[in-house]
């Protein structure tokens, strides 16, 4: 009676033939070159690239020399141009001062109310102005452009 009514239950059994073996051994990463090959390759690439760097460096040095020579060549001319403009501006400043302080009592051009800046110099000696004097007649925006560079450095 019990053998005829065998209910076939579903069971979680191993597959037929049993489980396959579980791989537990380490699988290291694939190494394309050995250690010495890497070092040799590094030295080789460094050698070739040093040679190319050396070729390029010669060109860089030539460029630097050229630029330096050019700067040295035009420096006196630029300095002379600046000095010319400086002298012209001194004249313009003097004229502006004469124009401005025409009606101020006691003021003489080039002095401070008649008192000369350097008493022991001859009257027509050039007294180089300070920054404030040179820019005495300028508009504020031009002042701002130069004051930080000039007074703080």
């Amino acid at each position, binding site marked *: 009676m019990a053998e005829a009514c065998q209910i076939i239950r579903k069971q979680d059994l191993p597959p037929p033939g049993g489980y396959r073996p579980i791989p537990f051994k380490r699988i290291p990463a694939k190494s394309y070159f050995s250690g010495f090959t890497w070092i040799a390759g590094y030295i080789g690439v460094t050698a070739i690239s040093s040679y190319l760097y050396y070729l390029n460096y010669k060109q860089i040095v030539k460029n630097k020399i050229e630029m330096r020579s050019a700067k040295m060549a035009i420096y006196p001319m630029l300095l002379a141009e600046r000095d010319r403009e400086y002298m012209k501006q001194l004249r313009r400043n003097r004229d502006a001062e004469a124009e401005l302080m025409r009606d101020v009592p006691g003021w003489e051009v080039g002095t401070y109310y008649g008192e000369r800046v350097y008493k022991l110099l001859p009257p027509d000696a050039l007294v180089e102005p300070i920054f404030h004097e*040179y820019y005495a*007649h300028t*508009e504020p925006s031009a002042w701002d452009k130069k004051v930080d560079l000039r007074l703080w450095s």
Partner: protein
Amino acid sequence: MSDISPFLRSIFTDVTGPMYSYQMFGRCAKQEANMMDCMEAYGYGRGVRKCKDLIDEMYECHTLKKQYARFAAMRKERNRQIACGQLKGDKQYVTPRIDSY
């Protein structure tokens, strides 16, 4: 008391001397040298009286007071004239070229 300078100058009297001078290509090297020559010749007490002009030149070079005062007076006058309307438009300022100083 301020007219008396030390009778004997030694290393101890130099302890509180000046720490720097203009003589290394400074701005006021000439004025300072003149002043110091005069003071050296007359000593401290008489020197302050006899070398007053040289001391004033050195003072002016060192502090630039008169030059700055000139600038301040001119600026004040210009601002006053602009405020009163005497200077208008392009005549208000005389601006130098920026790279010229």
